[in-house]
């Protein structure tokens, strides 16, 4: 009896928690009619913002994938002095107030920034360009991908890579023929997460790239601007963002859980895996 009670408590707490996490989202949708949401897509501001968001997000994610993957792999498979520092570095953007991150980007890449002079020497000015948006998004979203990637790579059986080596494949070939295919699922999941996060990026973007319609004004920036002039519109855009992210994450999660599903096997009561 007491036990059943204890367990009930667990469930209760969980329900409360999930409800709490769901509420704000429900709130947003309550305040906007679906009609309103659709109607937003005829609003030029929204349209432009949407395009900018999509373009920059895709570029940013491509960059994250390209640069983050090898980084994650090395961090996962090699131990070197300063390893912990490197991993912390990867996590920092996650915990930096985006606005501060933006200031940091300015301080680093702005025209008075560390690399500013060298960049302008090459005739490049980053701040307030679309490139700046991409950079801001990439900076803020990267940890979500890289951390996931590290975890995934750490989980791949070292025997398989070793086998590949003894079969005459160098580290690189091994990476592409064995490691990547096995890590695919985890990497995709991580990328989806960082994509969603990137879509929602605000603070760093406004600081580093400003908010110029058609150029640097992403959805979150548009939302913020519309607050003043058209409150409903901003709420509706918020709803749009939530929808995109949620759908993205959900489909992915389901797709993956279809692949390696513990739920497909298991008459077992207490999560005993098949090895039990």
């Amino acid at each position, binding site marked *: 009896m007491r036990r059943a009670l204890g367990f009930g408590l667990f469930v209760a707490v969980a329900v409360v928690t999930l409800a709490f996490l769901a509420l704000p989202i429900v709130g947003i949708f309550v305040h906007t009619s679906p009609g309103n949401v659709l109607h937003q897509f005829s609003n030029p501001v929204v349209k432009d913002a949407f395009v900018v968001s999509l373009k920059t997000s895709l570029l940013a994610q491509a960059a994250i994938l390209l640069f983050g993957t090898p980084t994650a792999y090395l961090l996962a498979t090699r131990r070197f002095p300063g390893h912990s520092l490197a991993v912390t570095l990867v996590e920092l953007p996650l915990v930096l107030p985006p606005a501060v991150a933006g200031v940091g980007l300015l301080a680093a890449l702005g025209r008075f920034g560390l690399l500013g002079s060298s960049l302008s020497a090459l005739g490049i000015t980053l701040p307030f360009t679309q490139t700046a948006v991409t950079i801001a998004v990439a900076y803020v979203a990267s940890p979500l991908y890289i951390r996931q990637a590290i975890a995934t790579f750490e989980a791949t059986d070292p025997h398989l890579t*070793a*086998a590949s080596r*003894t*079969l005459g494949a160098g580290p690189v070939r091994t990476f592409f023929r064995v490691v990547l295919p096995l890590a695919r699922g985890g990497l995709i999941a991580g990328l989806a997460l960082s994509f969603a996060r990137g879509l929602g990026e605000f603070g760093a973007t406004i600081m580093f790239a400003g908010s110029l319609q058609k150029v640097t004004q992403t959805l979150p920036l548009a939302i913020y601007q519309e607050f003043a002039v058209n409150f409903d519109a901003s709420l509706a855009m918020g709803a749009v963002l939530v929808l995109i992210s949620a759908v993205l994450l959900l489909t992915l999660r389901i797709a993956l859980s279809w692949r390696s599903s513990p739920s497909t096997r298991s008459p077992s009561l207490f999560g005993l895996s098949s090895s039990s």
Partner: protein
Amino acid sequence: MAKLTLDQIAVPLRTFQLELSLEVGSTVALVGPSGAGKSTVLNTIAGLVKPAAGSIRCDEETWFDAERGVFVRPEDRRVGLVFQDYALFPHLTVRQNVEYARRHHADEYLDRFQIRHLQDARPGSLSGGERQRVALARALARDPAILLLDEPLAALDAHTKVDVRAELQQLLAGLEIPTLLVTHDFEDAAALADEVGVIVEGRLRQTGTPADLVAQPADPFVASFTGANLLHGEWCATGVGTTGIRLDDGTLVSTTDDGDGAIVLAVYPWDVTISTTRPDDSAMNVVAGAITAITELGNRARVTVGPLTAEITVDSLRRLGLRPGQQVYASFKATGTRVVASRPTEG
């Protein structure tokens, strides 16, 4: 056929340092308890682990040399390593696994190991025996100068094991490649290898043919590892001039050897006979006691009396009508005992 030489390699491990020299010309087995460093030896040869000292040569090629700072990368050493868990690539088909080593004779190996019919299956759906065949095919497909097998039979359940072992036995006989295999089962080692090395805590305790190890175990550990009973005791004077051994439980034992101090005797089960009456044969050593356990298998039975386990035929078991708890005499010839170094047993 080629020859592999490990010269005084040293690998620092968590709790001890692996240190050994070894020559592999024919089929050699390393046996030892779990954690002895067996896999590490294979990984070192394959180039997956870098020793702190020593050198590794395969025929004329030098694969590793600490002094001269030579280290050939695993992909450039011609070794065929078969992992304990086979380490087949789960995302590739059997055929793709075999073809992985970039050679085009895949078919040849698929046929040779009778896995042609499985070529499109993924490893996940194979039985233990089939996996092993695929792993072997894959390793040989790269045409290695030396074959390394890590616990080739450990992943199999006891009854497939017998068949697979026979299979492997024939295969190795057929191959013209020096093979180093690792196991923690002396029986498997005896079945598969011409020469056996017993490794404990990173050091070779003894090497020789299986028969040698059984005949003259170098130390108690080797003895127990090869299946002997160990009797602990002390040298002592027995009557005039002759010496004998007083076991810890008091019984006197005579041997053909001689010495003094604490000591360990090795007696093999098949040298021990059980009788219900004390045998009055001076050449016999006798341990009296109650039967603590009887195990029948096939036409043989293992009977445990005090420190001794005897292996007798089921017929004699029946004839003597032995039951657990019964008082009996376990006896063995003086010649049937081997005095092994008076070091205490490990493991």
